């Protein structure tokens, strides 16, 4: 089997994650989907580092993880505070951006 399949898998997961971001309303699930996308990217990175035979890809993936962790922490904190203030975790309820 050609390792490129990992990339296809990554692409697939990424697409699924993106679709989830678009269709789910629960902010938490939405975040999970984002995590899914990030992981898909990580998989791609790792595969690339295998492709190129150096570890930079893995480093990038590593950084991605770190950033993802930070993002999750802050994001979840935001969700919690939003939930506190308006007792809802639905992203549609926060639709104040319309003119």
């Amino acid at each position: 089997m050609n390792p490129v399949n990992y990339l296809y898998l990554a692409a697939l997961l990424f697409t699924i994650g993106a679709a989830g971001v678009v269709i789910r309303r629960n902010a938490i699930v939405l975040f999970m989907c984002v995590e899914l996308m990030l992981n898909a990217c990580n998989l791609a990175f790792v595969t690339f580092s295998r492709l190129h035979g150096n570890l930079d890809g893995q480093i990038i993936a590593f950084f991605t993880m770190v950033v993802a962790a930070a993002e999750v922490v802050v994001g979840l904190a935001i969700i919690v505070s939003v939930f506190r203030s308006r007792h809802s975790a639905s992203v549609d309820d926060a639709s104040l951006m319309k003119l």
Partner: protein
Amino acid sequence: MENLIGLLVAAPLLGAALLLCGGRRLDGKGHYIGTVLAAASFVIGAVLFAEMLGRGEHDRALHSKVFSWIPVGGFRADVAFQLDQLSMTFVLLITGVGTLIHIYSIGYMEHDERRRRFFGYLNLFLAAMLLLVLADNYLLLYVGWEGVGLASYLLIGFWQHKPSAATAAKKAFIVNRVGDVGLSIAIMLMFTTFGTFTFAPVLTNVDHASEGKLTAIGLMLLLAACGKSAQVPLQSWLGDAMEGPTPVSALIHAATMVTAGVYLITRSGAIFNAAPDAQTAVVTVGAVTLLFGAIVGCAKDDIKKALAGSTMSQIGYMILAAGLGPIGYVFAIMHLVTHGFFKAGLFLGAGSVMHAMNDEVDMRKYGALRKYMPVTFVTFGLGYLAIIGFPGLSGFWSKDKIIEAAFAKGGTEGWILGGAALLGAAITAYYMTRVMLLTFFGEKRWVPDEAGQEPHPHESPSSMTIPMMVLAVGSVFAGGLFSLNDSFLKWLEPVTGHSHGDSPLSAAAVTGGTMVVLLIGVALAWMQYGRRPVPRTAPRGSLLTRAARRDLLQDDFNHVALVKPGQYLTRGLVYVDHKLVDGVVNGTAAGVGGLSGRLRKLQNGYARTYAVSMFGGTAVLIAATLLMRAV
């Protein structure tokens, strides 16, 4: 000597500046300043005249270049004066009559609180008129040309509180402007033809130019002359111009300004000589106008309007003469001068009469004034005899010559023109007699004015009568003096040139004819107005009469043909500008606004919608990159 020429213009100009900027502190003595400066100008003119007579008749022309005015590329306009016999004639006429009328106005305008301003305007007019006749190039002449137009505008509208006066002033200026277009186009044509528009080089090099060009120039000059000299078809303003104070009518609209057209044509004689078609046009205009004015003069009951009609007609004579070419130039100018005397006299007389009849102008409400104001009667009467061409008086000499010259044109054209001139003479006799009879003879037909006070006519103060006497003297003897062994002819010939046409009739025959028609005219008038009493209100009269009362429908024609369409055009354009030109812009703006209003709906505020658009956008980007790679 040359420097004196500048002074000629400077003196009245200074007066105008002083009086108009001087403010109220000059109210007391303003009129004296004005009169003195006008007189000074006349004195200078006289001195120059004497000096000119001292020189041989072919080097009499003086030229003085004051400074270079507009030098741009090949376009050279100088402020330079040229004083030859022709200009000198005008200078003397203008300053002389002008001074007299200044004196007259001192009395006439005594009760007007804006007298200072009036004299300022008069001085301004003198300056402009002198500039007109002294200019050595057409552009400077143009300055004077419009300057007199401005002065006439200011003076016609002097009593601005009267809407009629303001309108008449505006009308005069606008109609003159139409003529000025002709003058300016003529100047442009000269510039493109000769590269200059200075009299000497242009007029001496006429033969280089093609006849077509010259005809065009001639016609344009004729248009200008029509505007300024109230010739058909631009004559409509003169009648209304009588709204101005009577001295103004006498000076500007009888003696001097309106004759500027004759000066222009005579001055440009060389061009017209080389352009026969233009000359034909000139004589046609002249002939038509002399009849037109005469007919109008017959119908008017307003004494000043009647005189205005006669002015029109007399200037028609001059234009006719000028159009005849070398045969007529001299006589045109000669008639111009004599006319200046007697017509100014007549107007001053009319003014004196109005002064006495507390500003009543309707002749039907005069009558039997001869014993109340003898001086006016005598002077007016002399002027009357002069204008109808009573043998021996000024008018006789000059008009008779013109009629002769008209016949001398030769051929059918000569007969037609001569006939017209003769007929004009007859009508002149008729309407002037009518004026005379209505005003001074018959029984009283006086009516109280609006204030309700009966008019009790009295002789005018001496400041008014003296000028009238002087002018009367002039109108009696000037013609004879000029004709005394053709002195005037000899005087002007070096400038205008002269040639005797071959007249089909002998001079005696013409004179006889003139006498006959003259008698007929007087007799007709006497039968109509002398024998039976004159009704206070004008009878309805024949169709022609009614038309003539309305200036032969000239104004109506203008109104229908020009004014109305113009108003509609402007209104339409205002609408178009607002709706169409502006509407396009505002429409675009509105369209953009609406579109953005619709696009705004996409901003529904749901994060997920934005996410979808981002998602799709990414897809599109990838597609684009792939396509780029593929291509």
